[in-house]
Every structure is written in C-alpha cells, then in structure tokens.
C-alpha cells in the first residue's frame, strides 16, 4: 500500500509537467450558498404551481403515480386506498415527527400494520428489528426534502427518524410533500446542496442523499424494460396543498 504522500507526490510531478490541453475552469460555486438558496426559495414561493405541473408531467413520464390532497389529514385515506388496491397489509414509515403526520391511528383502525421508525432509536436491537420490519413491509412512507420538477425526481436525506430503506425495501414507495419542497432545475438542487454543506448541523445529521426518479428498473434481459428489480416497483408522490 502506497503511502498518501508518495502517491500524491507522483501526481503532483505529473501535473506540473503540463499546462493542460486548454484554459479551463470548474463551475463557479455560489459565493454565498445560504443566500443563494434563500433566493431560490423566494422565487419558488411565487412559481411553485408551474413547478408542480412540470413535476407531475415528468414524474408520470417515469411511471410515478401522482396524488393531490387538501391537507395532511387526507393522506392516510390515500395510503389505505393504495394498500387495498394492492392487497398489501404492512407499512413502514419515517418518524411521524419528521413526516408531520401520524398515519398509524387510521391505518390500524383499517386493520393494517404500521411500523414507524423513531428518531433516537439506534441500539443494535432496534436496528435488527427495524431491518426485519422494513424487509417485511409492502409499503414505505417517507417525506421528500426536495422535489425536482425538470426530471420528476424526489430527493431524500437520510438521518435520525428517516431510514434509508423505507424508500428502498418495500414494493411500493410513497413520498408526501408540500409546496415548499419544490425546485425547478438540477442547478437549483446544486445551490441547495451547497447551502446544506455550509450548515454542518443539518448536513452532518445523515450520511446519504438519494435522488429517486421513478421506480427501480432494468432492461438487462433483451432490453425489455422491467420495474422493481431490486427497489420499489411503484413510486407514489402525494402533494399536500395546505402550506
């Protein structure tokens, strides 16, 4: 195993031997990421209806299923309907505190099983239990930290009370979001991620960010498009109107 210094010295020597092929610069980072992200937020406060329309169009193009409800109180009914239509009985969800609503009362009343991740649980026993629950669940319910219109993409940050597998192991993933999560372009996502990075308490609370654009898919056998090869076969997005 080469030592770091020796490895980097070799590269430094090679880099010094040439001016390069042409004068070039990397993409300029926003000078003040937090302010730039705030500007994006302000702009979207005006333009969110157009962004939502575009998101819906692109999301449905990648086989996503879009729902729209008046307020959080209507979300559990949609979840019940999704479960009934698919004959599914087991849910796993992010922490209700993170989601902003608790679907368990309605779902259990309907005879469905719900396991919610709880922020703060991280001992080995909870870990093992949660993994088994997530692997057994047919529907996973999460929030979405960013909803990207131009590609129909849901961006999810992992962290306390927001496990990675909720949007991965179950056959169906349902993400619930409001207007404040909408952005229009990848470039804006870049700005938000740059601002996240200069905000250590937020950026250090979870180690993974996933961009999810439709269900898991493959075309590896004779180029036949097949959904749900490893991850979810279906992805639903529920837009909640009430701010």
């Amino acid at each position, binding site marked *: 195993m*080469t030592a770091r210094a020796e490895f980097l010295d070799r590269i430094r020597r090679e880099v010094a031997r040439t001016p390069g092929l042409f004068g070039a610069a990397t993409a300029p980072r926003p000078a003040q990421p937090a302010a730039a992200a705030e500007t994006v937020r302000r702009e979207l406060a005006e333009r969110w209806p157009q962004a939502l329309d575009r998101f819906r169009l692109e999301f449905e193009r990648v086989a996503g299923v879009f729902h729209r409800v008046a307020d959080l109180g209507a979300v559990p009914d949609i979840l019940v309907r999704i479960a009934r239509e698919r004959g599914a009985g087991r849910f796993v969800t992010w922490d209700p505190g993170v989601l902003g609503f608790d679907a368990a009362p309605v779902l259990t009343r309907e005879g469905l099983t719900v396991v919610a991740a709880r922020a703060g649980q991280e001992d080995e026993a909870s870990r093992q239990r949660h993994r088994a629950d997530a692997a057994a669940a047919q529907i996973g319910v999460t929030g979405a930290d960013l909803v990207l219109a131009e590609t129909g993409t849901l961006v999810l940050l992992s962290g306390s009370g927001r496990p990675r597998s909720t949007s991965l192991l179950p056959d169906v993933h349902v993400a619930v979001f409001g207007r404040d999560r909408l952005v229009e372009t990848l470039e804006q996502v870049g700005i938000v991620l740059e601002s996240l990075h200069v905000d250590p308490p937020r950026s250090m609370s979870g180690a993974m960010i996933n961009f999810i654009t439709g269900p898991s898919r493959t075309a590896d*056998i004779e180029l036949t498009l097949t959904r749900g090869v490893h991850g979810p076969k279906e992805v639903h997005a529920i837009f909640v109107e009430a701010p």
Partner: protein
Amino acid sequence: MSDAALRVPFPERAGAALKDAFLQEALTIATTKFIDLRKESFAGFPQGEALRDRARAIKEATLQHLDTHLERLADNVERVGGTVHWATSADEAREIVLRLCRDRGVRMAVKSKSMATEEIDLNEALEHAGVTPVETDLGEYIIQLAHEKPSHIIAPAIHKTKGQVAELFSRELHGEFPADPEILTAVARRALREKFLQADMGITGANFAVADTGTIVLVTNEGNGRMVTSLPRIHVALMGIEKVIPSMTDLMVFLAILARSATGQKLSSYTTLVRGPRRPGELEGPEELHLVLLDNGRSRQIASTLREALYCLRCGACLNVCPVYRQIGGHAYGHTYPGPIGILLTAMLKGDRSVRDLAHASSLCGACKDVCPVRIDIPRMLIELREHLDREKIAPWTERAVFRLFRRLLLSPAAFRLSVRAGRWLQRPFVHAGRLRGLPLLFGSWTRTRDLPAVASRTFREQWKDLR
C-alpha cells in the same frame, strides 16, 4: 478478460463475433435503441450542448490540479469518518480489499456494478481468498452465473437471449423458469434480496467523488447501489483517481448529461450520494466506509498522449455509435473496457503493446467524438497511438515496411504514376467485382480482413489530362 481468451489473436476474435448471428442481431438492436434514446433526449434539451462544454472544461480544470482535489477529497472523507487507501497498482488495490475482508471476517460481499473492480479482477481474488463476491446488477449477475465477462459498459449481458438466461437461472437457482424477462427479473430479485440482507460488505465503484464534501456518487437504475451502501456493515468504494470533481455545483452539470448520454433518461432512477459511514442517530448504513483511490497507470497519462481519456464518464455512448463495436461487440476487444474509448483505456492501463492490433479497430469516422458527453477526441488519440506503435517498433515489421513504401510513393509524383501503372497490371489476378481481395505476401494480412478498391482502368489524373 482471462489471458486464455487473449491468446486468440484479435482478428480471429473479431471474425468469430462476425459469424455469430445472434450476437449480430442483438448488437444491432441494442446499439440502435441506445442511439435513438440518446438522440431523442438531447433533442428536447437545448442547453445540453453548452452543458457538455462545461462538463469538458470541469474535467480539464480538475486534471490541472488533480493532486489538490484528491487531497481535499481524502481529507473530507476522513473528516466524516471514512478511511482512505491509496493504490498505485491493481495488485495493491486487491490487497487492500482482501486485507479488509480478512481483518473483519467477511464471508460474502455484495457488489454494485463497477468497471474499476473489473479492471483489477477483484472477483477472482475474493473467491481465491474464500470470500463470495455477488454481483447484484442484473446484467452482471447473469454474467457472473454464466462465468462470462460483460460485453457492454452499461448493458453487460446484451449478448445473451432470454432463453439462455432462463436456462441459466433454472440450473443455478434450482427451478423451472420460463423465458420471460419479467419473471426472470423477479427470480433475481428474490435471490439477491437475501444476499443483500446477509452480506457483510458492500463493494461499489464511484461515478463521481466530490472533493468539497467527501461525497461518493453512485448512479444506478436498479437500486442495487443503494442496497449495498445501506445494508451491509462495511462499504468499500473503489475509484480511479480521475473520478474526483471539485463541488456539488459541478456534480449537477455531469448529472444533467450522464444518463442522457447512456440511456436517454433525464436522470437514472437512483443517484446516491454517500458521505461517510452512518451518523449517530441513523438506524441504517455501514459502520465503516473505505475509499480506495486507484492509479493503475492513470497518472502516467496526465502529461501524455492519453490525457483526454481521463475525462471519460463510462457512459457507453461511444460504443453504441462505433461501426466496429456494432459489428464485433465487447468480448472481441478482449479487455475490461471495450469500444473506441476502451482501446485508449486499455493502452493506459496495460501499456501500448496490449493494443497493437486494437489500435486499428477503428475507421476513425469520428462518431465517438460527436456523441461523447465530454467531447473526448478519440480519433486523434488513436492516430497518435498508431504513430507511437510504429515509432516504438511495436507494430509488426511488415506493416511498418508497407507504410514506409507507401510514404515514398506519395512523396514523389513520378513514383506514384509509375506505381499506378504497375499496380494496374499486377492487380489483375486479384480483382473481383472492382475490389482487391486475397493479395499475396506482405499485403495478405491487410486483405484478409478488408478489401480495397482496385486501381481504375483510367485514373482521374489520366482523364483530367484528356479533358484539358
């Protein structure tokens, strides 16, 4: 690719591929589909061309300070709790992974598709050390069960029929499965789900690594990249040093063009950003993250002829449009990286001598350069490579002698005129339907795999003289 396969010379490997009727059809269907999807995707994306220029500039600018960016990447990966390893050669990279397996009692490792691990033949080394590597990308899984090698960078099993896959799964997974892609995919889902939940280690490559944040970026459609970085207790990422990019802002430029170039998607289903092992408070994620930075011949090219090949994103677009790849497929190339860019990457990793024949497996038509998301000038480098093979006397002496003679003829009008006249007379026994075939002696190896237009009964120059 095993050395045994390479003992068969390239023209014979290519010849066998040309006679394989199924392969021919599969290649045409697959590459044509990828070309159409890419074209459609860029047609509705007017900013795409400017983004390609920016992406190219980012790659070049990053290379101009590669040492600094790697240093920052390593510092930031360590700051968030990861461990960085430095591997000068493939041997070192394998040894790093094997030692991790030994020290931590790893028995099974699940892998998400990674060309870098193919490049260092990691699977063989793991098996030899008693660790079971499981490829989890469906195409790679099929290839692994069949003990074969990938034939396309992003569609590794395009050379297999659904019937062959059904037969393979029935035998290896003990069942009776029909030749239905949907059912076969479900079979693989069940088999691999178990492996994801059991494995001790997840092994990935990296499409990008962001120096500012110490983030490893994986782009997949199946979600296996997420599985292997979320479920096992150890995550090992192996990446070539050229994959580092400075910032999240840069990353967005690449994401906007990568999937479009590869499969015509706006984004792949999953883009996964991994920043160190799991954090306090997280229920899931690995306890340990190891990043192995692999040189393996790359740094030698920073100030050399193949520099531009270090921009490559491994999207596969140049394979699909290449008239040679479209005919012979990935296996005939005989190395990890096929297609036009593969010739250059093979020269980079294994030395010029390894592409003595392959350097000529291109018509220099330039289609690869047109579709490359970062506009790599592959034809220019192929010509330079050929020139180098000649200068270093790596090319066969017969080839060099013929070209030297040709050069003489072209430099002297009198010699050229004379040779045309002599050629017209000498070519007679070998002309069939206006083409020269089956030339004798030195020229034989040239016409074995191609034909040439015959010298015209009256050349342009002769007609021109009469016209005046």
